[in-house]
């Protein structure tokens, strides 16, 4: 696995934790334990995402990486083998 894939895997791992926690919180909005879990992984996700974007380009339209040059259209796209 190359460095890009390794870093992306980290982003995906934290992103999944955030998504899963958010679905639980939807039906348990007063669960302090779940909210603490969500906050912990949201922070890790934000940090991993920022690190990935600095090196390999934007993951979101509003990323800082799009400010100087429109990097959004740079490949690879997520479904392509080389993006994984």
């Amino acid at each position, binding site marked *: 696995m190359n460095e890009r894939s390794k870093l*992306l895997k980290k982003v*995906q791992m934290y*992103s999944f934790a955030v998504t899963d926690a958010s679905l639980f919180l*939807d039906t348990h909005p007063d669960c302090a334990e779940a909210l603490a879990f969500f906050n912990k992984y949201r922070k890790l996700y934000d940090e991993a995402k920022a690190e990935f974007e600095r090196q390999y380009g934007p993951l979101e339209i509003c990323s800082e990486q799009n400010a100087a040059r429109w990097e*959004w259209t740079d490949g690879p796209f997520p479904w392509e*083998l080389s993006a*994984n």
Partner: protein
Amino acid sequence: MWKYEKKLEYPVRIKKTDPTAAKIIISQFGGPDGELGAATRYLSQRYTAPTPEVKAILNDIGTEELSHMEMVCAVIYQLTRSLTPKEIKESGFDVYFVDHTNGLYPVSASGDPFSAAIFQSTGDPIADLYEDMGADATIT
């Protein structure tokens, strides 16, 4: 509205093509219990959900189903790349290829195009919930 994140929910890295497998897996894209149906089901049912919690969960699960659809499509896309005419014919992928080539078309493995007839949205939360459990069986 929605915002796109330019990544898959989980990596898809298929080294060896397999059009025979793609023919089966495509049902998880456009078949009766596929991800497109799941996303459309929850995102249609959310409007008449009875409580804020149910509105939120249908909204967010429906959204996540779209990312499942994207992964399934990535699997099919990668399984069917750079096939030779011989591989297309011998794998049985030819019956799909004749209409869609390598394009991703939402269809069941038995060839039915995606249809909203595979799900319900009744405006009745109990009826919708039973429908969701029948289709997805993971809504716990």
